[in-house]
């Protein structure tokens, strides 16, 4: 009886987008590149995707995608424009919402900005299958707040020691401050296949040893390797031309790897 009712109840409620924050700890590890190409790969698989510049005006999303916007989130907050008019179509078949400069003065987060961002994400959820939040670098309160808007977190790291340290610090803070119990990991710019898997294993060991004791008893923190992306000269080429690698050179190893990330997210 209840089983028969379920489909109709499900149909009545609008499907809400999955929200995924993309963050890194350290800057310059390819976080925005992964966000943009992942969005395009998801779009190719028939998903309605929105990438939100959650760096609040400091993101490079517009640079990576060669986008210009007259209307930004800043205008929406000020009541100068409708939310719909701020959403842009990006080359990879997905949508982008740019924050615009001046949204957060001196990167300070006010209650007002928080409420508005929360409201906007909620408002957009019924219209998309995926909302990717491209956050800033570092572990500032703006980044932590942007991550808190999403139900899933993806940390992008490279094998570089500084990147690993910052990724680890980010994971630690997210586990203890936001009660995250599952964090996805993409290891970018690896030199050989399998390096990402080894790094995940190493991070997991340090987490189990040093982070678990700080969590409530019985809690766990699982780091899931979403994928690894080989260091690829094609990436540099595409970035210089301000193109998406999955669009411009879909056959290159990095593009294939990012396509695999999308497939895994949907699996």
């Amino acid at each position, binding site marked *: 009886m209840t089983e028969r009712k379920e489909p109709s109840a499900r149909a009545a409620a609008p499907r809400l987008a999955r929200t995924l924050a993309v963050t890194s700890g350290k800057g310059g590890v390819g976080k925005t590149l992964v966000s943009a190409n992942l969005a395009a790969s998801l779009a190719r698989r028939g998903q309605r995707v929105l990438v939100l510049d959650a760096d609040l005006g400091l993101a490079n999303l517009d640079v990576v995608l060669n986008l210009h916007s007259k209307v930004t989130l800043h205008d929406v907050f000020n009541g100068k424009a409708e939310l719909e008019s701020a959403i842009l179509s990006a080359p990879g078949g997905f949508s982008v919402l740019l924050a615009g400069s001046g949204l957060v003065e*001196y*990167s*300070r*987060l*006010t*209650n007002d900005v*928080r409420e508005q961002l929360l409201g906007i994400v909620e408002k957009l959820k019924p219209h998309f299958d995926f909302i990717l939040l491209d956050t800033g670098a*570092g*572990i*500032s*309160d703006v980044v*932590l*707040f942007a991550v808190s808007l999403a139900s899933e977190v993806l940390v992008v790291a490279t094998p570089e*020691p500084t990147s*690993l*340290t910052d990724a*680890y*610090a980010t994971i*630690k*803070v997210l586990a*203890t*401050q936001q009660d995250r119990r599952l964090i996805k990991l993409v290891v970018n710019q690896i030199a050989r296949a399998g*390096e990402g898997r*080894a*790094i995940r294993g*190493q*991070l997991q*060991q*340090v987490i189990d*040893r*040093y982070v678990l004791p*700080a969590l409530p008893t019985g809690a766990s923190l699982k780091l899931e390797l979403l994928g690894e992306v080989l260091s690829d000269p094609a990436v540099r080429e595409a970035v210089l031309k301000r193109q998406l690698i999955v669009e411009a050179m879909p056959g290159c190893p990095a593009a294939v790897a990012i396509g695999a990330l999308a497939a895994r997210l949907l699996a």
Partner: protein
Amino acid sequence: MSLKVPTDALELQTALQLLAQAGRDLPAGVEPGSAQWMQALIDNLCDLSSRDALTGLANRRQFEVTLSREVDRVARSGEPALVLMADIDNFKIVNDNHGHPAGDQVIKSVAATLLECVRPMDTVARFGGEEFMIILPNCPPAFGHVVAERIRAQIERQPVAVAPGHDVSATISIGGAFAPPWVRSSPLIWVERADRQLYRAKTAGRNRVCLEHAEVYQVSAEEKSMLFGLHSSQEIE
């Protein structure tokens, strides 16, 4: 114009009444209406508007101003700072069993004890109801634990006379969070973090202190060496 004058006079009258009610006298021998008199009036009003009427502690408005100044200071100086959130345990029971005047008595007594336990540079504020906030600038983690525990113990030790010959004992739970020294935080998030620790203290049985691990934001040398054990072992493989 003719309408405005009586309104102004009325507001001045209200202000004077407010000050009189709060037991604040303007300096004697000063000509009413003079610049000096007006200054004293404004100073008194400002002070009044930043204090909690029942306890005389900083009120929530003043707390928020002080906290956001502390956030700025920490971001510039990198000094450790701690925010404590304290809540009287089972306060509703005191109110239910002994009445609201007794509840007020407990709040006043706890407020006074909190003030005694901290340095003059610290800010103790009544946040609302039976909830208090304490801002401790320049407070290293080790000191933070000691002071929070001292406050908790002192409140537990201090009986409150709610009626002649009738004492009740009160306890508080305390949650605290350090300002992350390398980041410009926001007052809101800082308070939320302390609140989360207070919740932990409450669920762990009350009358206790829970501080967020200050180490959460740092990666120790041990953690680093374990992280990078990877590269050496991998090369060998």
